[in-house]
């Protein structure tokens, strides 16, 4: 497994003034696998995400991303939009951040900005309507259509994203992130606010992204049914440190994890577990 690691996080620490949100966290995410980052509220999961995706600059630590061709990128040295543009890390947000006043199709077109910008000759070729630009635009619309079909929103392509139901917006945001053609897809609570049927559809979508497209996925999730169903590897955090990791089965039975979720100390949790079984 060590040879096929897409993301390795080493001793990542993030301080906000006196508060240590993430403390010496180390974990790896395997290529073409789904890695879940779980933990109680306030454990520092989203902070880790923001460090990986360049929204925060970590206080210390290293984050290494290895592309399929073997190229290695130190994520902590890139910032802002370069994480997505050069390192090919795409993300979604805990509270959906679509472009509500633009149509679903337009949302997916904006995601292909960098590729289209080159194709339009930094706007100049596009301005005179060069054939190469037209072809590139048609291809971009095709890619967007493929994704709309995949998430079942093809018939709503021309509707404003802000008008779509909540579950559709969640899926559209994932499709938009995928339209940047990422190596690593980071999802921040993709199942939040979804009903059981929508959660199941989401699991299916994520599994197809992993197996059919070979994209590695890192997700934060509270919905345990989703985590247990689709994750290949689970990392559990509490108070900014890793308290457990392993397969979903392994993590579920770990007393430390149960203790963290129940808010009790470890001994009590073991006692609870033993009395329960």
């Amino acid at each position, binding site marked *: 497994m060590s040879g096929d690691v897409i993301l390795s996080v080493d001793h990542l620490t993030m301080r906000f003034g006196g508060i240590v949100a993430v403390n010496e966290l180390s974990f790896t995410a395997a290529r073409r696998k789904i890695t879940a980052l779980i933990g109680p509220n306030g454990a520092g999961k989203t902070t880790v995400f923001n460090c990986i995706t360049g929204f925060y600059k970590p206080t210390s630590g290293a984050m290494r991303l290895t592309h399929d061709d073997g190229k290695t990128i130190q994520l902590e040295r890139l910032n802002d939009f370069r994480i997505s543009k050069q390192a090919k890390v795409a993300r979604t947000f805990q509270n959906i951040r679509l472009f509500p006043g*633009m149509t679903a199709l337009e949302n997916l077109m904006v995601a292909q900005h960098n590729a289209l910008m080159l194709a339009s000759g930094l706007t100049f070729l596009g301005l005179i309507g060069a054939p190469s630009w037209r072809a590139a635009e048609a291809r971009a619309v095709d890619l967007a259509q493929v994704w709309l079909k995949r998430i079942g929103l093809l018939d709503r392509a021309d509707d404003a994203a802000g008008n779509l139901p909540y579950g559709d917006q969640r899926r559209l945001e994932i499709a938009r992130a995928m339209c940047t053609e990422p190596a690593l897809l980071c999802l921040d609570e993709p199942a939040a606010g979804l009903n059981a049927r929508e959660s199941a559809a989401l699991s299916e979508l994520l599994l197809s992204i992993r197996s059919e497209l070979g994209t590695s996925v890192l997700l934060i999730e509270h919905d345990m049914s989703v985590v247990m169903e689709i994750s290949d590897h689970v990392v559990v955090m509490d108070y900014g440190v890793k308290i457990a990791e392993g397969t979903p089965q392994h993590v579920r039975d770990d007393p430390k994890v149960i203790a963290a979720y129940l808010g009790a100390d470890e001994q009590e949790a073991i006692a609870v577990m033993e009395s329960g079984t």
Partner: protein
Amino acid sequence: MLFSLMIGVRTDAGPTGQLIYWTRFGDLAAMVAAVFGGSIIIELLRQWWGPVGTIRIVPPSVQNALGVARRGIAPVLLIFTFLVPVIFYDERYILDLGILVLTYVMLGWGLNVVVGLAGLLDLGYVAFYAVGAYSYALLATNFGLSFWVCLPLAGILAAFWGVLLGFPVLRLRGDYLAIVTLAFGEIIRLVIINWQSLTGGPNGVTGIPRPTMFGIPLSPGDDGLAALLGIEFSPTHRIVFLFYLILALALLTNWVTIRLRRLPIGRAWEALREDEVACRALGINTTTTKLTAFATGAMFGGFAGAFFATRQGFISPESFTFQESALVLAIVVLGGMGSQLGVALAALAMIGGFELFRGLDQYRMLVFGLAMVLLMIWRPRGLIGHRAPTVFLERNQAISSDLVKEGHG
């Protein structure tokens, strides 16, 4: 409370220097009654006509007719504009007014790129207008360059200043951005006033050459256009030429903007207005995106400025006050941010309407203010508030203004 004291108590210096005051309860009561009554009337109007527009009880046939009228209005307006010099050939006043309206249409369309598409509130747009005007005036009077050489130069210089303004304000958003752009507009004006050796200070630049029709002057001389065509010279020729010149420039602005909207850069502008954080997560360089918006808007402002200079033949800092910025911004907001047709209609209403009420003297502003208040109650997102998508698969349907964000700077 403060207001009640300001109106209710009148103070003055007495004959021996002491403070004397008297009360004006009558005036105060009248004011209070007026404000009270006014609020009630506004609230009633809001309930009668309010912004419920979309679901008002209007028969579908009427709504269809309105839809057709809405689609037809742009071509009809364009054809009419082309015919204005033909219809009103003898009426110099209307031609001049037409040129003025078209100048503001162009400025509105230029600012629309910055405010309407990219959502960056720019209160100093007149600075670029001034840069364009002075660029042409100084290049033409000092180096004898022709209008057609100076026009692109004026645009490039204005765009350069747009980028220069853009750099420091990139981190600012909303109100802060507005304040800095406002200051930038004032800085440019003050530099023009004080840099006497270059700009002539408050005296302005005089003797700016009139435009030529690609080298052929529109003058009464033997080499003038009239002589070449063998027709009698008339000063109206130049006015008509200027009219078509600004029309062409405005249409160029419009064409480029419509084109840009459908290109990745234009979509990135609109995406930036909708959600900047999401843009960054998608790998869009928000810095260059904002700078290109500033530069593009400034370039059109520069073109308009060069035109202004050649039309007037004389420019001074007085033409580039904050009031101009505010007027152009009002046109964009009134028209509906991002809507090309809306901006054109708003420019027509603002500039034309202003002329229409000339007979009312000092009450002109009052009528105007009232009209704007009513319009903002009736259509809070401008004349044309909805947004047309830039690309579609099957249905090209407008997006309701409720969903479109205004941008946070």
